[in-house]
């Protein structure tokens, strides 16, 4: 493997890991909230968290670029200090995190909805408060789905291209992640590297999908646990 393969892999893992760690608690709270409660504007929250899934990634990228650009709402001329997100790996984290948010929220929401609410009622009648019920019963019961959500979110973050390209650019060694390195290798006519990245991408995808399917399917996971 060439040095570029190593640096792109390292950067992809770094960006996707940070994005997942930052996004996951937010997504979990949102997912639980939407799975268990009806509140005014729930439809709007659901729509907003789904938006990155259905919007063109380049549109999301431009939105973020305008937001974080010098004169944007969160730009240095408006805030008075620099968030340092344009053309940096931190910008890639923001892009990857926002693009993977819908996938994490949706998967987490389904796993919360699969937890029988009567179990939570029982826990409360046994004297557990809201947070105690959540952390000691709901969360452990939903953990498989939540791990699946994190894996899918992480993988989506690894694959992020369009939005990250606009916000963070494709700078070798700094913001050139796996998907961008693949793109650049193909564009430069370096077929061997491009194929290497392609195989890595397929491997990452296959492992993630298998792992998350296994975690999400109760039959499969029980059988797996029994071995």
């Amino acid at each position, binding site marked *: 493997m060439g040095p570029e393969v190593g640096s792109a892999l390292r950067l992809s893992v770094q960006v996707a890991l940070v994005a997942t760690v930052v996004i996951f608690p937010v997504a979990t709270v949102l997912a639980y909230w939407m799975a268990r409660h009806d509140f005014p504007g729930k439809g709007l929250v659901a729509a907003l968290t789904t938006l990155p899934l259905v919007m063109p990634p380049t549109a999301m990228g431009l939105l973020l670029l305008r937001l974080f*650009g*010098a004169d944007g709402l969160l730009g240095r001329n408006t805030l008075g200090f620099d968030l340092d997100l344009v*053309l940096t790996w931190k910008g890639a984290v923001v892009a990857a995190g926002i693009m993977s948010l819908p996938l994490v929220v949706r998967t987490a929401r389904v796993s919360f909805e699969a937890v029988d609410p009567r179990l939570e009622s029982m826990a409360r009648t046994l004297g557990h408060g809201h947070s105690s019920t959540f952390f000691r019963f709901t969360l452990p019961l939903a953990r498989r789905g939540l791990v699946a959500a994190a894996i899918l979110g992480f993988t989506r973050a690894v694959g992020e291209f369009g939005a990250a*390209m606009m916000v963070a*650019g494709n700078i*070798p060694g700094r913001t050139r992640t796996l998907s961008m390195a693949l793109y*650049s290798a193909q*564009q*430069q*006519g370096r077929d061997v590297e491009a194929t290497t990245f392609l195989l890595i991408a397929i491997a990452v995808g296959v492992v993630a999908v298998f792992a998350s399917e296994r975690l999400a399917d109760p039959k499969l996971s029980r059988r797996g646990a029994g071995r």
Partner: protein
Amino acid sequence: MLSSVEPIGAMILRTPGLCLPAMRSAPAVAVLTGCLLLLGGCGGQGDDPLYVFAAASLEEALTEIAAEFELREGRPVALNFGGSNALAQQIRNGAPADVFVSADVYWAEDLARDHLLVASSYSEVLANRLVVVGHESSTWEMSDLGDLPALGFSHLSLGDPEAVPAGRYAKILLEGVRLANGSDAWSAVRASVVPAPDVRAALALVREEPRAIGIVYATDYATTEGVRLLFEVSDSMAPPIRYVAAAVAASTHPVAAARFLAYGRSEAAAAVYRRYGFVPLEGGG
């Protein structure tokens, strides 16, 4: 009709991992077949367009020229713009191109070496120049390319210097600039380079990021608002910037491709190119 279905079918066949799971269910097969027929049907309507793959910097000029060609010849032209490197990779992978207009000799020769272009149709057709540009709000001043590394910009926005012609030209240009400390200007700025997929993307970054500086073609600068000219690179400093046009060997419309190339060398087309700042080359053909 079948011929236009083929590339799509081939594409799907080349990605077995994507299509096999879907193939298991009959409805999915039906939907897929329906889509293919629909796409095939669209391709079969009227004349097949002439596919012209052209450097991103030619977008406005060539769109105008192709529209005139369509009016005169009654043949639809489909334009595909991008970095010449990306277009060359597409042609190499069997994209249905009829004409290729590359912003440099490098990518045209890359295809010509493998006999993917019609050798007799190959000619240098246009010249262009490089300019250094900044955001319209920027206050940088430079009188010489040697001033560039010390300007204090955050990023240097170029077409990918390893592939995109505009970036390759810029790299060669800066490699030839000696600084007072004995090193060359490229070594001094390369850490701040942001490689873009084509020259227009490089220019777009300069419009969005006030601390970035870009090196693009003079013609790109002329058609874009929001950027300020910092320095014009004279022909004597720069590597010669030559656009090459050629018919693609695998083209199924060789006659129409030849007519399009001929029209591109006409006085009418040259007038359009000049209006956008390109220099049509005499005897280019």
